[in-house]
């Protein structure tokens, strides 16, 4: 029988030689078990994803909170499966561990840097909750609703129903703008421009009434309505700010309010800006 540790003194240095770990045979049965474990984790993750998504859609007020658990549970399932599969295989000796670490470091450094950064970003997203599934976020130049947070990338659904996959590493390089931060309500700004000589008071009143009469609006003490005026060189912009009850109604709300405001402006003769004359002195 081989003793567990061998000590060999050579001059000033004591070298500790670890016994070889009993290897797990890499046979068909082992591979089958590994695949079975990974498939099981995938099926469980999909089942939980389906169940939580269905539950979330039935409760508009708690949709974002419920969906928050989807990536967390998926991560736990996959991490457990990977541990079960690789745990017995990677019982490495110190020398082997050193060699593997070196190789891993080189691989990450040269080829898998982005993937690794994405994975770290994914872990940070899950732990720090920078944004959650269901949030409306701007990642780099992309804006949309977060429909999935994976270990490597985040999926966004844009206003024109396009699915965009954004690497989680974006978290380290770009600013992340979260429009609702886990809340189902969301502030929406509706800008409508008027001519410089238009009746601003009347324009503000129309904007306000268009906001509060929309079927999508949400108003209470914590979610007030505001009207702001931006004075530009050739026009003025009336900005209506109000919350929608469900962030998915953001674009429907903007369209609804803008349409009714413009209709009322036209009816009341409130002019929208025309282009500046070509010979305008721009000094």
């Amino acid at each position, binding site marked *: 029988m081989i003793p567990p540790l061998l000590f060999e003194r050579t001059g000033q240095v004591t070298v500790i030689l670890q016994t070889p770990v009993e290897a797990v045979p890499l046979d068909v049965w082992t591979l089958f078990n590994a695949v079975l474990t990974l498939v099981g984790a995938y099926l469980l993750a999909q089942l939980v994803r389906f169940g939580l998504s269905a539950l979330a859609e*039935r*409760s*508009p*007020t*708690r949709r974002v909170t419920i969906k928050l658990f989807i990536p967390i549970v998926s991560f736990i399932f996959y991490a457990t499966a990977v541990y079960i599969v690789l745990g017995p295989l990677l019982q490495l000796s110190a020398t082997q561990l050193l060699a593997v670490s070196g190789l891993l470091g080189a691989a990450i450094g040269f080829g898998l840097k982005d993937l690794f950064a994405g994975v770290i970003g994914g872990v940070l997203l899950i732990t720090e909750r920078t944004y959650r599934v269901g949030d409306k976020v701007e990642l780099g130049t992309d804006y949309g609703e977060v429909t999935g947070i994976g270990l490597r990338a985040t999926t966004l659904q844009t206003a024109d129903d396009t699915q965009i996959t954004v690497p989680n590493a974006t978290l380290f390089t770009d600013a992340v703008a979260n429009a609702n931060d886990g809340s*189902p309500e969301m502030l929406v700004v509706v800008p409508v421009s008027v001519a410089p000589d238009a009746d601003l008071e009347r324009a503000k009143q*129309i904007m306000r*009434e*268009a906001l*509060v*009469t929309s*079927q999508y*609006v*949400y*108003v*209470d003490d914590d979610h007030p*309505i505001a009207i702001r005026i931006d004075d530009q060189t050739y026009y003025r912009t009336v900005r209506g700010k109000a919350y929608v*009850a*469900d962030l998915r109604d953001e674009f429907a709300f903007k369209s609804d309010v803008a349409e*009714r*405001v413009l*209709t*009322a402006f036209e009816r009341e003769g409130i002019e929208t800006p025309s282009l500046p004359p070509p010979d305008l002195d721009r000094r």
Partner: protein
Amino acid sequence: MDSNGDRKQSSVRDAVFGAVDVETLLGAGYDQFASLLAREQSGPMAVVGPPYSGRERVLDVATDRLDARSVRLGPGADGSAVLDNLGDGPLIVGGCHHLYERRVDGFDPLMTVLDALSEVDTTVVTGWNSTAWAYLDAIWSVERSFPMTVEIQPLDTETITIAIEAAGDVPTYRRPDPGDRPLFRSYPIGWRDYEIPIPIPDRLVRSFGTETDAQAAVFQQVQSVANGNLGVADALVQRLSGEQVYPGDVTPIGADLDIDADERFALRLLVGSELADRSTLAEIVGSRPEPLLGRLAREGVVTIDGDHVSLEPAAVPTATATVNRGRIL
């Protein structure tokens, strides 16, 4: 009885409110109302309540006790009826939620009346739909215009039972023949936004035993479905009249309603107004009125009478739940 399939029109009988005194309807707010009737206080008062919950009963009592002039507003009201009668002694105004329409330029009559009320020191008792009131308070802080506000309270099972029985024409509570008995009956169990139909073996249902017990169980279900709203409760019971009834038979109209966003908004407008102009409703919702209202009418949720559309009393629980789920202000 198959109450789900029964699309007959529901109604609220005025007589059902006769057995309920105003003190019960207003609960803790009655003291304020009583002091107004005793002329210890004056100024505008808002009586706020859900559709068909007994606001009119409160306003009628105020009219009698104050010997006041009475005005009832309907769809399209411009407020002139209120302004013309303001300042000449006590005034009772019902249907104040008709003073606005949910559209651009739809608030002018309301603002005119609120401005006039702010300068009045005589007694003015106004009736408001609670959904409309909540909306107006959120966007215009309408409650600030009323130094006194009282709300219609949900009634308990006993009060509802007494009121409906006093009005007569109550259902026959009988156990059905064994051959007609279903194996299971569905009971909705609600928690927050969720409602899950729980199948209960009929054997348990029959364990209610005597007819009196069965009646109590039915009225408990009526109170629960109607959320203590007497008018709605009466409409629910009227749908069961002359039949053998189980608690599970007490279901609101449109319990299996599946509607789109426009229909949901139309329902919200009707929950807040109870009665609306067909053309105005279509204009606000922005859809063609025929398909939208026709579908709601087929489901029995609304009644169309000429140019007027009204919310069915027995559909109030469904409509309210639908609107709340959609979080429409």
